Structures are given as C-alpha cells and as structure tokens.
C-alpha cells in the first residue's frame, strides 16, 4: 500500500505535473481560424514573458514554491534537473495562459497587458499566502477569459444577440482590430486555463522526498499513542 502511494506521488510529481503544464503551454497559443477552421499557432508575445516573470516572483514570494527545496546542492542531479524542467514548464505555461486571454493585436491588447502588469506589480507588495494567491490568479484569468472570449468575441457573432449589443455599445468609438476566431478557440482557451489551475493545485511548495511523508509520520505516531505499552 505504501509502495503504491509513494510511486503514485512520484508519478504525479515527476510526470503528470510537467505534462499538464506543457499541455497548457501547447494549447495557450492555439486559435482556430473563423473562415477556414484551420489551426493558428500564436507564439507568446514578449509582454506575456514579462507577465509570467512577475507571476513567478509572486509564486516564490507567497511561498507557493519554496525554491530552496526545489533546487538545492543537497539534492541528486536528476532530481534538480527534473525540478528545473518542472519550473520551466510552469513559467511557459504561465506565459501561454496569459497569451490565451490577451487579445492578439490592437489597442485592447495593450489595455489588457497594462491591466495585467498593474495588477501583478501592485501584488508584489501585498502579503499573500499560497491559497489566496491561487484564488487571486483564478479571478484574474477568469475575468480576462470572460472579457476576451465571451464579451469581445460577441462582436463577431453572426446573430445579433444582447451580448453583442452590449459589447458594441461599450466599445463604440474604439478601434477593435483583433482577428476573428472560431468559437472553438474559446473552448481551447478554457481547457488550457483549467489545466493551468489544476497544474498549480498539484504543485507542492516543497517537493516530495523519498521516505515516509509527513502524513505517514503522523499515522505512525497515532499507532504509538494507541498502544503505549508496545
């Protein structure tokens, strides 16, 4: 039983988490052309790398990632390499998550980028714990997703619904020169963001070590308490 638990934890930490983060990196830049339904791969713009750097600093500051335990001279080289790759995957997944919710071009691209930069910069000086940081990230990406994939994409919707009317009213006089993508792009982006959040939930601040976990240690202590004479 213990062997299974340890093996599953190792599989999750060394295989599943990098896979989930890299899948986010793959899907974050994928769009579907509205005209011919072809794939369009958008490489992360420079501003998303800056945003990813700021968010990575936040992860470290909030204690969501304890770098001293992730990369250390006391760890074996393979473990350090594996951790380094996971952290790189996290960085590029973050950049692509931003890429997924940023409008591609035009004034709105820079407005979204500016608001992201503003939020992340002010957060650098706030006190965070990992749980609050995760909630904040979900709200940040959720809001951007709704604005881009529901509100702004409504402008290109073939039927003149209420959302399109509202969007057209709000954006009246603003040059919205973003390319039109198929609705499937929204689904891809949603899936990428869900994977990103799942990846963040699975990343432990302190990576697993071989041997019994803290939970197992507590269980041993319980046993010792229930049979004090043994």
């Amino acid at each position, binding site marked *: 039983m213990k062997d299974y638990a340890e093996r599953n934890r*190792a599989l999750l930490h*060394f295989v599943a988490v990098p896979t989930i983060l890299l899948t986010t990196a793959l899907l974050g830049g994928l769009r579907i052309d509205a005209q011919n339904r072809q*794939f369009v*791969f958008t490489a992360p713009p420079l501003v998303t790398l800056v945003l990813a750097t700021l968010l990575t600093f936040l992860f470290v500051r909030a204690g969501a990632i304890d770098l001293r335990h992730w990369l250390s001279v006391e760890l074996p080289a*393979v473990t350090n390499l*594996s951790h380094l*790759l996971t952290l790189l995957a996290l960085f590029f997944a973050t950049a692509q998550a931003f890429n997924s919710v940023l409008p591609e071009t035009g004034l709105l691209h820079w407005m979204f980028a500016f608001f992201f930069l503003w939020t992340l910069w002010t957060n650098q000086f706030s006190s965070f714990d990992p749980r609050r940081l995760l909630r904040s990230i979900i709200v940040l990406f959720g809001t951007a997703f709704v604005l881009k994939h529901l509100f702004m994409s409504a402008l290109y919707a073939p039927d003149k619904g209420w959302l399109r009317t509202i969007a057209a009213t709000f954006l009246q006089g603003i040059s919205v020169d973003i390319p039109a993508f198929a609705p499937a792009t929204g689904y891809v982006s949603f899936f990428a963001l869900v994977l990103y959040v799942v990846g963040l939930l699975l990343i432990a601040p302190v990576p697993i070590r071989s041997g019994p976990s803290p939970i197992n240690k507590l269980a041993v202590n319980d046993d010792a308490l229930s049979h004090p004479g043994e």
Partner: protein
Amino acid sequence: MQRKSIQIVGVVWTLVYASFIVWIYATEPRSFKDVATNTQVATGIYEINQEKFNNGLTLFRRDQFRAAREEWAAADSAQRDPRTQFYIAYAYYREGWGRVYYDRTLFTQGLAAVNRAINLDPNRQLVVDDPNLQIRTPAELKAELEQGLETSWRDLNPSRLFRQRK
C-alpha cells in the same frame, strides 16, 4: 530505485514533449493532416502521392495547367519534392507564356516554385527526363522565368512574335 526510474522517465518525457511543442510552433501546421505530413517529413518517410502526380501530368500534357497544378499541390502537400515543384513551376511558365507578352503574376509564382525545387535539390542533380519538355533542369527554367520578368528594349523586337514556347 523505483523513484529514480520515475524521475528519469519524467525528465526524458518532459524533454520530448517540450521539443514536440517547440516543433509544432515552428512548423505551424494548419490541421491534424498537416501534423501527420510534417511528422513524415521530419522522420524522413515522406513520399508524394504518385497517383495524383500522374493525374497532374496527364492534365499538364492536355494544357490544363491550373488543374495540373492543383493535382501536384495535393500530391506534394508539404512542398518537399523537387521534381513536383519543378513541374508546378513549368505549369506556371507554360500558362504565363504569351507570344506578345508574359503574365508577370504567373511567372513570379513559377519563380517561387522553381526556387523551392532548387532549395530542395542543393546538389543540382535533378534532370527531368520528359520528352515533352524542352527545359530539363530547374536552373534553366529559373533563367527562362527570370528573363520573362525582365523588361528591356528587346521586348520591342518584332521577331519575338515568332518565338516558340519551350
């Protein structure tokens, strides 16, 4: 020991998957079919569709150049076969050739196709052994297309009306 094996598998898998993502963004496939074709090219097992190539050749010999080009484009969807690209360029040349003037748009497209053929055959070994063609190598075809795109006083020479299409 088992943990170390999982770590090594994780490192290898992460590197392979990351390389695949970089490759996807570098090649920018337009569909799942493109992904399959690009994979064939990358692994060196890419082959043109011979049946479509032969259909294109039949159409070309009937002077149906546009239809021929479409067949050849489908036969060599990755644009990796120098011979097919040579024929596509030849179809542009023959369609754009005129006794009085050359169609510059078609000649420009032909030049792009013949340049692809040259790039795919850096050792310049391609000689197309087709009795219906008077131009047999991409270099000759390129020179012919470039001459057609140049404008000079020789264009006013009335003897040009008697020249023959190659």
